[in-house]
């Protein structure tokens, strides 16, 4: 009865991408804001290059990895807000009357987040090239960064979806956004962990999972193949993805009361 799961996932992803692309107000900030911040921080914090122990690269190259993290945070807002809008408008009830499976709903929405994440990452790479950045690990490293971006889109996107399903409110989903930005600024986005001068900040950054995501992407751009950094980054991304998808599954059961 009904469509195969793959057909359902594709249909919901397709819709998610279309509606995102038709909302310039949603997509432009997700691309422009991280790039703008990249150029601003590269200009304002250039002096950090002179700190003893700072990597032997330009601050622009050092900061490029942060854009991918910011993009992932936008994915949280995007996927969750769209779903919350569907709940508020009754569109989810319409979909619930079809043979759509709960898994298709979550995975389809995530498909949209992944597509947006890949598009954003391409824009960030383009901005990096224009700004003169070089990728230490070459094309293979770019591919690995895309993989990390996909995993982060799944993780942060599913957290947004879980919040939407739990609360049914777009405002509540957007409330996650500043929280994640605080976490971002309490990580290693501005300085390597060893060079953070304030002790409590260094502790927080060490405990902050975002540090490991940033460091993994950064290692591919400025260091080369750094096994421990990549392992830590991918483990953190995978953990967030698993937690997010499980949280979505639990919230979905509460939201869809259909028999």
């Amino acid at each position, binding site marked *: 009865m009904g*469509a195969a799961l793959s057909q*359902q996932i594709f249909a919901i992803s397709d819709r998610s991408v279309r*509606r995102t692309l*038709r909302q310039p107000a949603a997509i432009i900030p997700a691309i422009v804001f991280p790039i703008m911040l990249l150029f601003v921080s590269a200009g304002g914090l250039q002096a950090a290059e002179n700190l003893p122990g700072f990597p032997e690269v330009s601050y622009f190259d050092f900061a490029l990895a942060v854009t991918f993290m910011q993009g992932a945070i936008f994915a949280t807002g995007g996927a969750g807000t769209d779903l919350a809008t*569907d709940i508020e408008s009754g569109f989810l009830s319409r979909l619930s*009357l079809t*043979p759509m499976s709960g898994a*298709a709903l979550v995975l389809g929405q995530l498909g949209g987040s992944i597509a947006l994440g890949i598009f954003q990452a391409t824009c960030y790479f383009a901005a990096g090239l224009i700004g003169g950045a070089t990728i230490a690990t070459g094309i293979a490293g770019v591919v690995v960064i895309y993989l990390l971006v996909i995993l982060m889109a799944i993780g942060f996107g599913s957290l947004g979806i879980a919040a939407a399903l739990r609360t049914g409110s777009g405002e509540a989903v957007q409330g996650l956004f500043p929280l994640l930005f605080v976490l971002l600024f309490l990580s290693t986005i501005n300085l390597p962990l060893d060079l953070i001068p304030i002790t409590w900040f260094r502790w927080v950054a060490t405990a902050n999972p975002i540090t490991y995501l940033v460091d993994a992407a950064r290692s591919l751009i400025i260091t080369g193949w750094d096994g421990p950094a990549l392992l830590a980054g991918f483990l953190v991304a995978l953990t967030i993805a698993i937690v997010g998808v499980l949280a979505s599954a639990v919230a979905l059961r509460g939201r869809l*009361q259909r028999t």
Partner: protein
Amino acid sequence: MAAIEVRGLVRQFKKGPRAVDGIDLTVAEGEIYGFLGPNGAGKSTTVLMLTTLLPATAGTATVAGYNIATQGPQVRAAIGAALQEAALDKFLTGREHIKLQGSLHGLKGADLKQRGNELLERVGLMEAADRKVGGYSGGMKRRLDLALALLHRPRVLFLDEPTTGLDPQSRSALWDEVARLSREDGVTVFLTTQYLEEADALANRVGIIDHGQIVVEGTPAALKAEIGRSSVEIEPHDPTQLAVLERILARFGEPIATRGTSASIRLREGVGDVAAIVRALDAEGIAVHQLRLREPTLDDVFLAKTGRSLEGSGGAGDDTETDEAH
């Protein structure tokens, strides 16, 4: 086999009242059943339960032969529904809605395209099919909603207040399509409405619900015949004479509840009494501002069964029901 069979259906919300309080009803295949009641009466909650979107607290029901509690997927495959407020994505076109919903139902390729075009043509949206829904009028949204509900050729169609907020022309067009669906395609239609003329025009049978309970059920003609006699409503020119007017009218029939500025009775001897009433009012010096002679309507049926007028009984109550139901 009945298309819809409901026995003792109850929905009790956690902090609210019994929105649906033990209803029984049977809808035959191919029938249009009008579920009539004021805002907050329990209509939408009943539809949500019968479409499997909301579990019942107690009672049983089958739709298209499937149990709503244990055979949800089979029920959903056999029904189409246009719920209150056409919930559409303003960023998608009409055709994209068809594609999305059709894909979720397992339609694909040429079959989906052909079925989509057929329905878009039927509801008069072919020209607007590639425009974003955000630019559609209320009537166009309702028609697209209906097309989406019919996409997978359902045997039972649930329409929850399908014409609320529509202009008379759009309402009439939708009525024609619903009647055609039942007449030509044999689709069973469960239609909730708070418009008397809608139930009167479309429904083969009507169930009137109030405070979560069905107060009366039957064909519109039989229900009106049960009330039987005509009524007259008179508004005096001088509102202070209302009490005297009521006393005079009481000589000619039983009083009916009215809306404050007029008095109304169900005529004991029929329309022949009107001349005598006018003479009696004249003799008492009561000037008449307005006199209305009415044949029995479904509102009279509602009034007779509940003591309240259906048309004046709406209010904020429905918000509570809708919020809790979704």
